[in-house]
């Protein structure tokens, strides 16, 4: 199969993933491949399981007691649910940006430096300064905040806070960034800024984005996965999904008939 051949370039491969919340099954037998240096979008109506699946990729679901994940998810070929894998180290490699901007109640600098500090990524203060500047620059925030790095991150606007959260995530030097509806709490201008940023970050990271907005998926992603009621209905190139969907449910969703 073609899939077997291309497996080498895949950053993350998921096979037969089931997720249960107690007795209820949230995800049914999902197979997905996440390409390196590309943006993969998960779309689908509310409650379809796209966020749940995203949270499997860095084992954030571990923090929920009743959540159980089965199946095989590999990052660079290594099973991330292997008992020898430490979820803490996994999350340093697979960063995450959340729906609602959640800067820590610390200064802008300390927000970005938080991850590098706990992982011991830098040897000196000047190296840390450099890393913070790099991360803020990559997140397109440096020019706006360079004069007030010691001010609280919670004092920024919503869009700035979300870019701060992105800077915070990339400062840990992950290889994958998961974004859970990163623009749903933002106005259209802040959204456009973040979307440009996502497109730019693609050169260095693999990005997986969950979004409610089909236009956003069409604008930023190269691959799109459509989830419906816990099933992965269709997965393919974004262009194909939006121009010639093979499944009727995908067709209905992108034309606005379900959702």
């Amino acid at each position, binding site marked *: 199969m073609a899939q077997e051949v291309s497996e080498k370039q895949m950053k993350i491969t998921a096979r037969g993933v089931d997720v249960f919340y107690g007795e209820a099954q949230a995800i049914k037998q999902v197979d997905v491949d996440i390409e390196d240096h590309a943006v993969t979008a998960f779309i689908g109506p509310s409650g379809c399981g796209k966020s749940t699946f995203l949270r499997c990729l860095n084992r*954030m679901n571990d*923090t929920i*007691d009743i959540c159980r994940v089965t199946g095989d998810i590999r990052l660079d070929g290594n099973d991330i649910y292997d008992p020898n894998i430490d979820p*803490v180290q996994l999350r*340093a490699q697979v960063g995450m940006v959340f729906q609602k901007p959640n800067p*820590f109640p*610390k200064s802008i600098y300390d927000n970005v430096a*938080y991850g590098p500090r706990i992982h011991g990524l830098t040897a000196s203060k000047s190296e840390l300064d450099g890393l913070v500047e790099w991360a803020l620059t990559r997140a397109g925030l440096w020019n706006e905040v360079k004069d007030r790095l010691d001010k609280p991150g919670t004092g920024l606007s919503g869009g700035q806070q979300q870019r701060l959260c992105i800077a915070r995530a990339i400062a840990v030097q992950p290889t994958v960034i998961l974004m859970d509806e990163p623009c749903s709490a933002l106005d259209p201008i802040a959204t456009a800024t973040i979307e440009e940023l996502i497109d730019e970050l693609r050169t260095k990271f693999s990005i997986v984005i969950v979004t409610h907005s089909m236009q956003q998926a069409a604008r930023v992603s190269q691959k799109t996965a459509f989830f419906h009621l816990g099933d992965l209905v269709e997965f393919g190139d974004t262009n194909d999904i939006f121009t010639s969907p093979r499944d009727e449910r995908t067709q209905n969703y992108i034309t606005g008939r379900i959702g």
Partner: protein
Amino acid sequence: MLGLSNLMPIIILGLSCAFFVMARSKATAVSNGIPSSLHSRPNYHGTLSFLWVLLLGIATYLILLIFGSWFVTGSLLSQIKAANPSLADIQAQLVLSDAKAISEGRAASSVDDLRETIAGDYSSLSNLHNWSMVLIPLALSILGGLFQFTRITTEWRARNKSERIISSFLFVCAAIAVLTTIGIVLSLIFETMNFFSNIGWRVDKYIFGTEWSPLAGVHSGTMDPDRVGAIPLFVGTMLITLIAMIVAVPIGLMAAIYLSDFASAHVRAWAKPMLEILAGIPTVVYGFFAAITLAPAIRGWGEAIGLSVASESALAAGVVMGIMIIPFISSLSDDVINAVPQSLRDGSYGLGATKAETIRQVVLPAALPGIVSAVLLGVSRAVGETMIVVMAAGQGANLTVNPLEAVTTVTVQIVMLITGDTEAETAAGPAFTLGFTLFCVTLLLNIVALRIVRKYREAYD
């Protein structure tokens, strides 16, 4: 007759209920079976009549009760004075009470013509008073009720009227609470001023003096400014508070962290109520636990390693007080730690932080203002706590910072002053002054704590 006038409040209440029912049924009747034609629901018409009857009746009853007896006594006293101008006030009072005794058929201290006359006047006047207390409120409340009854029409705005009366009543209740507080504070201030004027305004001697024995010179009628130094009490209070906080803050805080971030829902469901039961134990129980169990045990341990420990020690009182304050701190801290949004924890976990790093570097700093205010409220509890220190800390004003010795606190000295043998008026001065000091300190702590909490709330809502 006396019996009937005492029953008046109940009679008026019954009358109000009767008018409620009457007004409600009249309102139903005028609606002609179309309830929506009424401006106010029948129950509001009933309520308005009920309130009018009740308030008119009770108010006139109370006015007559207070001013009536004042008028009866006053007029009889002036009659006694007129008959015998040489009598002093106190003697006139005696004549009056004898006259009351005669008219009620009890034994009087002596019987003479004046007393007999006054007795006769008294019985007729008090009879009149009693009748007026029955008839006037009854008449007024019935008139008021009928007045309201005639006003019931479909347009009559009974709801607005009755709601206005109820809201004024609620205002009066709130005003009572506020006025009481103001009254207590004013009496504290006046008694404190009084005390300071007794020691010749040597406020500095009170605040900085080191010898506390305020009642030493009272038999000579003066207070010695050199013996009202409250420093030993302040130091004792601070020492015990410090020991209590050393016990309560770490244990309470760590219990809160366990409960909010580590305990399973099941453990939390029973552990939190259990901790709060600790807060429900009366402090007097903690007090004798400290005095009877812990203090001798500490003395025993101390002696075993060669230390001399007083049988009433600051350590015993402080440790037990700390245990008392644990639930206070843990419960408040648990609330503020829980109030830290889950999204912050997720953000930290998402960066690959461990649970310990997340709690230490994200959750606790976010909850810090709330924790600080919990600690400050705990301190104000400790400063004001009385029973434990009365029983376990000692009574002598002893200036020391050695936790193994007996010390005394501000609250203990207030108890000693008020319950001691010295007459209340003399002892009240220093006691009120100490109370006022305590009030200022706890007020300050509470204000600071509440400010911090408010600032914190602004950040997260």
